[in-house]
């Protein structure tokens, strides 16, 4: 079992398959909110579903309306199970809180690049070693 300790942005527990993005994510305009799929042209995760995943990415980008997009995803039952982020900013922090998505930042996300599934709980990311 490996554990990484970060900073809690939103408390709670979320577990699921890891979806790792080397590139930042814009939740407003970059995600299809009715399907939960990355829709930004040219994005490394283009076409992949974020629903129920432990979504790992460096940081957010784009419009402040992105916070509401996370809430919309949650209402559509298409939200990530948890968010793991290198450095959180306002948009993702507010979005995770209002949408109730467990969120942790200050994590060395590259260590999750090859991990299959992970658990996020109150600022700790853990996964079973092979």
């Amino acid at each position, binding site marked *: 079992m490996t554990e990484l300790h970060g900073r809690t942005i939103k408390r709670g527990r979320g577990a699921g398959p890891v979806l790792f993005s080397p590139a930042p994510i814009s939740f407003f305009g970059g995600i299809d909110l009715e399907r939960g799929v990355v829709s930004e042209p040219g994005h490394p995760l283009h076409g992949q579903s974020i629903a129920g995943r432990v979504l790992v990415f460096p940081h957010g980008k784009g419009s402040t*309306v992105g916070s509401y997009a996370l*809430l919309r995803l949650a209402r559509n039952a298409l939200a990530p199970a948890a968010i793991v982020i290198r450095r959180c900013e*306002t*948009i993702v*922090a*507010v979005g995770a*809180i*209002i949408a109730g998505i467990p969120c942790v930042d200050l994590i060395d996300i590259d260590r999750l690049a090859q991990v299959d599934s992970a658990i996020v709980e109150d600022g700790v990311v853990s996964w079973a070693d092979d």
Partner: protein
Amino acid sequence: MQLSDMERGMLEGERGDAVRTAMEILVALGEIFDADRLLPVRSVQIAGVSYHNLGDAGLEFVEQMATDGRAVVPTSLNPAGMDPDRYREMGIDAEFAARQMRIVEAFRRMGVNTTLTCTPYHVGLVPARDDTLAWSESSAVTYANSVLGARSNREGGPSALAAALCGRTPRYGLHLDETRRPTLRVIAAGSLRCPADWGLLGAAIGQQRPGALPLIETAERPDQVSLKSLAAALPTFGGQPMFHVAGVTPEAARHALPADSLCVDAALLRATRERLEIGAEDRVDLVTVGCPHASLDELEQLARLLADRRVVAPLWISTAPAICQQAAKRGLSQTIELSGARIWSGTCFAVAPLKGRFTQVVTNSAKGCYYGAGHNLFRMRLASLERCVQTALAGRWSEVDR
């Protein structure tokens, strides 16, 4: 971050779900921006009101917070996506209007004063020097910081609402003395003949040096409307919600001149204008005034210019509902509307659903040029208030006497 026992209780849900969510937002932002504690706020101003921007998710969030959230400090509200009383005349459909009014009603239930304006300082909500605020409309934040000497970060809609429900905001950014220090000396060498030119100055500084906090030196004496225009343009183009003007704004004399400098001369102003006006033609579909919202003085000026005249191109003026009422009492609204011009109150052309309805638009607002082009794909032209009126009366643009 240090929390008091009361603040910790709010975070644990002792004051209900909305306050818990609000406190979670404030604490998370405080942690992210390395705040040491929360500060009590004197007032809050909430942006993110238009249904056009919030969508159904934003509407759901605001209604959810309104189930048990109540503002505990004086809180005012930014413009909506339409005039609440005259939306049909504006060409806004009933479906949009119904959802927009649900948003405004939810804020009202939370005890928010539904001022529907980006210029709270025009309607009696004038912060005092050194007041701690959590305001979110960028031009209002910049005006409060720079012209009034109050202290506010540029809050997002949810963080401003959170501050309203908790009466607090995290201590970082422009709440700290060192962050209010200018980082760029601006020598405004080009002539600034009208408020629109001050907006152009803000656009030039923002485009040339994004993020810089300017100390502007100029021989001109800006009036309140000019400072409002600069306060709208600077954060729009450069992201910085504060400036100083030497000899004018209250904190300018506190600081030494920054080493880094920028000369904004006539050539740079011209080049900045040309960038704003890409694709503009002489045909005019719409003339807009009132970004930020027109003051009573500006409405008086408009009434003088429009008395006994008739516009050919539509002229839309936006202002605060409270200012609109005062203008009506003085007969200004009647004079203006007899010309065919329209005063829409409580709305803003940057957040109204206007895409596709107009192409060639003339305005006296540099900020308006940015959002008109960016959000609505309009081809914009920037002109003084007088030129805007002349253009509406003539029905087309003319380069003469520019």
